[in-house]
């Protein structure tokens, strides 16, 4: 569960419940069926969880059945050279602008990362539906636990857009950029095992010219990455190690010109990135659009379209723009669905995937203490979570359970989610933790009677004149709900407050209404103080690694509940310990993790959502089936990844309704 602050902002600024991605790990479908090579064909069969290779939670499968698996348009595609008619038009519904910093080591915005995926570079090693590394990518990956080394072997000949061959020296160069003392991006991260590379400490301190732990073979096609600390079991999962190369011959002159510090402003990190993806950036209109031309030497074959135009538009406009035939492909928001069902357009269809984002409802139980210091007052450790000391009733587990059991996620999943959302039965998310989710678990269900019973049994039986329960000392108690406004919260918040009133708990909005987004972040996220807000929901982009430490460790900045306990920390420790290399042990640890959340309710996951993409009928070969070949071939065109070389167009302009 790796996430970047900026991505967090992106997610939340759009909707708490819409998909987004993570910069270097991309979303994926969950099937192993081969992709359709042309339009038409048999519907893709999904494999249910527990059946072996490709687990998916049955509830998600059910929701996915509402959508086609791929386009069934078998008209002949427009030939290459058809000019502007054969340009794939992609609409990105967003409320922000295009930042335009595409370089893989530096980008921090989901849209930038998607452009990098198309026109730049991507991970050299592929992964399967369980997010485990496979040997089907550009390079193979071998993990030697004894020697604590990762061995990469290039099995394919790949060329950069300018014809220079790609070698593992380019990956070494990526590490040299990330580890440089003047590096300005966010990838120097323990979650990518970058600081753990042998010799990185010296290089990062400026004491060495090269990283001694990166050992290339003579032909630059084998790379051994030596690590200092033992690699954690999460290394088994895709996205846990940095594996995206950066073209040395292209970026090194740029660095010579502006230095590492200025690289993110250099045009070669922006409009003129060099990659090996299926498309090449032709023009960028700052903040608005990107036009890409096909890369005829792409490793999987030449693209079928004469160009890709990516344009940004306000997300409210997506349904009408799709209906008018302005775009071929556009990411859809669940909030747009009402309009979809109102018009029932026939010129485009919707495709769905399990979303790589989620919303967690947190109960705030503390703040951060002072950072750990040595005798001289130097900071030597991160600040740790400190429980609030005023014993506010939110610290009482019965209160939290009652609050949680009174959240009617089913209704919101039905109304706002149009039955395509599933009230999450677990704190784990099927996007990255599919193999660990116990499909028989019910989780926290909506049950007002149960909530009442929990409160009565815990001793909250006295009530005031208005019927609200008093706390155990007989004093008034109330809780503060802080939330920004969006289509989901506009319905969820009034419903929650009403349900909580029904069980006798007084919950009031922070300052009487929905909060400004910036104020919300300042009050709950970017503060070490005990927040005046007790209940709030926050959206997250998910990485492929299910390790919950980055959200729940007692030193994690994103521990939004500011919660920790010995039992809680023990499970987190177990998940990262060497024992967890044992699959059964790890599965058991995750099972205890789910159980812990069920019993102690420091937070609960809101819903599992689907990402939606609208695809015009003139598009062919669009499919949500992922191919395990190193690139997120057609199946992965979520909001993260919009096009690929197999997509073709069968009419001279998008169909209008």
């Amino acid at each position, binding site marked *: 569960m790796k996430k970047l602050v900026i991505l967090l902002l992106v997610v939340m600024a759009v909707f708490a419940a819409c998909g987004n991605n993570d910069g270097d790990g991309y979303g994926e479908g969950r099937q192993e069926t081969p992709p359709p090579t042309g339009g038409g064909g048999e519907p893709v069969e999904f494999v249910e969880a527990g059946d072996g290779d490709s687990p998916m939670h049955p509830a998600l499968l059910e929701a996915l059945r509402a959508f086609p698996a791929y386009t069934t348009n078998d008209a002949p595609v427009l030939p290459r050279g058809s000019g502007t008619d054969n340009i794939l038009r992609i609409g990105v519904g967003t409320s922000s602008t295009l930042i335009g910093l595409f370089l893989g080591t530096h980008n921090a915005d989901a849209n930038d990362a998607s452009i990098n995926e198309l026109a730049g570079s991507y991970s050299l090693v592929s992964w399967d539906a369980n997010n485990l590394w496979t040997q089907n990518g550009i390079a193979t990956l071998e993990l030697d636990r004894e020697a604590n080394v990762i061995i990469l072997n290039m099995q394919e000949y790949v060329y950069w857009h300018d014809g220079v061959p790609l070698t593992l020296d380019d990956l070494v160069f990526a590490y040299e950029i990330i580890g440089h003392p003047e590096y300005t991006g966010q990838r120097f991260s323990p979650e990518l095992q970058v600081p753990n590379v042998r010799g990185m400490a010296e290089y990062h301190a400026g004491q060495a010219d090269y990283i001694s732990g990166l050992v290339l073979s003579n032909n630059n096609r084998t790379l051994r990455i030596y690590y200092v600390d033992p690699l954690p079991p999460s290394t088994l999962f895709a996205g846990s190690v940095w594996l995206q190369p950066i073209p040395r011959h292209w970026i090194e002159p740029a660095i010579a010109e502006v230095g590492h510090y200025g690289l993110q402003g250099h045009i070669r990190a922006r409009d003129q990135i060099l990659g090996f993806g299926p498309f090449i950036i032709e023009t960028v209109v700052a903040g608005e659009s990107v036009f890409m031309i096909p890369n005829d030497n792409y490793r999987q074959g030449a693209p079928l379209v004469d160009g890709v135009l990516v344009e940004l538009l306000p997300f409210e406009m997506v349904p009408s723009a799709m209906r008018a035939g302005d775009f071929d492909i556009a990411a859809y928001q669940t909030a747009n669905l009402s309009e979809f069902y109102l018009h029932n357009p026939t010129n485009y269809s919707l495709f769905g995937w399990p979303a790589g984002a989620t919303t967690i409802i947190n109960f705030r139980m503390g703040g951060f203490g002072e950072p750990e210091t040595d005798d001289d007052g130097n900071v030597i450790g991160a600040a740790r979570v400190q429980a609030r000391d005023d014993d506010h009733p939110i610290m009482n587990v019965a209160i939290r359970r009652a609050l949680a059991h009174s959240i009617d996620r089913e209704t919101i999943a039905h109304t706002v989610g149009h039955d395509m959302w599933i009230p999450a039965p677990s704190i784990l998310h099927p996007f990255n933790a599919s193999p660990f989710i116990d499909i028989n678990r019910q989780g926290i269900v909506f049950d007002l009677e149960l909530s009442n019973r929990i409160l009565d049994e815990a001793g909250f039986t006295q009530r005031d004149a208005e019927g609200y329960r008093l706390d155990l000392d007989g004093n008034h108690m109330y809780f503060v709900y802080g939330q920004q406004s969006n289509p989901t919260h506009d319905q969820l918040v009034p419903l929650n407050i009403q349900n909580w009133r029904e069980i006798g708990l007084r919950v009031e909005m922070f300052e009487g*209404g929905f909060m400004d987004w910036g104020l919300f972040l300042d009050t709950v996220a970017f503060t070490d103080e005990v927040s005046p807000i007790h209940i709030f929901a926050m959206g997250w982009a998910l990485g492929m690694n299910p390790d919950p430490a980055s959200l729940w460790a007692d030193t994690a900045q994103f521990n939004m509940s500011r919660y920790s306990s010995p039992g809680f920390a023990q499970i987190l420790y177990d998940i990262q310990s060497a024992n967890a290399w044992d699959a059964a042990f790890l599965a058991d640890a995750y099972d205890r993790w789910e159980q812990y959340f069920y019993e102690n309710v420091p937070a609960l996951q809101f819903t599992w959502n689907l990402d939606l993409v609208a695809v015009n009928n003139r598009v062919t070969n669009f499919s949500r089936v992922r191919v395990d070949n190193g690139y997120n071939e057609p199946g992965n065109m979520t909001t993260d990844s919009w096009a690929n070389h197999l997509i073709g167009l069968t009419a001279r302009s998008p169909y209008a309704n």
Partner: protein
Amino acid sequence: MRIFKLFLRELKHDYFALVSIIMLAIIFLSIYIGAFVIDHFYDVMWVTPQRMPVSPEASGTLLGLDVMGRNQFHLLFVAARNSLNIALGVTFFSFAIGLTVGVISGFYGGRTDNVLMRIVDTWSMIPFLMVVIVLLVVFGRTVPTFILFLTLFSWMTRARLLRAAALSQRQMDYISASKTLGTPNIVIIVREMLPNLVDIVVANFVLTLAASIGIETGLSMLGFGLGWDYPSLGVMLQNATNPMYLQHFWWVWTPPLILVVVTMLCVNFVGNALQRVTDPKQRFA
């Protein structure tokens, strides 16, 4: 009182005003009685979320349900009552302040007048809407804060108007006579001057009421006013900011819109008639 007699006479010659005052009476009465009854029998803010607003036919109600499943007919009465209360509150308090400042300024004149009027001038220069929006965000959007901040920025015109009236009254012989007799100033103001200002207050009170309704609904509709948990006409009109609702779900925004327009029109006609009454040159009768 004299103004009401004159007003009745004026009404005979101004059918718009006559119709308006009858409609206004009906609207006000039905709103207050209706809201009282509905509040007693229903919880209008009880939410049952829906995918989309439910039409009158589908829901079997007079004006359908909004997206939160609330009965729009019931909501309309309660919202209208709340909006009217807010408008009345703002108007009342801004007149209370305006009258006090204006009369003191006009009666005493000289330096007092100068100082008070410069304060009024300075206060009027503050960009009213912007500051109110910021203050509402900072101090929370509740009914008391709403009335407070709108009052804070709407009393100045009242003060200027009443100062002018007080200034002219001050020149009158009855004031001079009282002063010569040694009557305390406060008694002169309250017992002798104020009754002569009632005409102006009444006439402008009604016009200010219309403006206050407009400001409340405007701010709430744009999302700067009251929140979802307090029914008001502006909050109901917020639905009209959603293009999809505007196009397909007339019942969530048309009724409050019509009510606001009709009420404001009627109030304006009546207010204009009242104002004419206070100025002999403008009277029809």
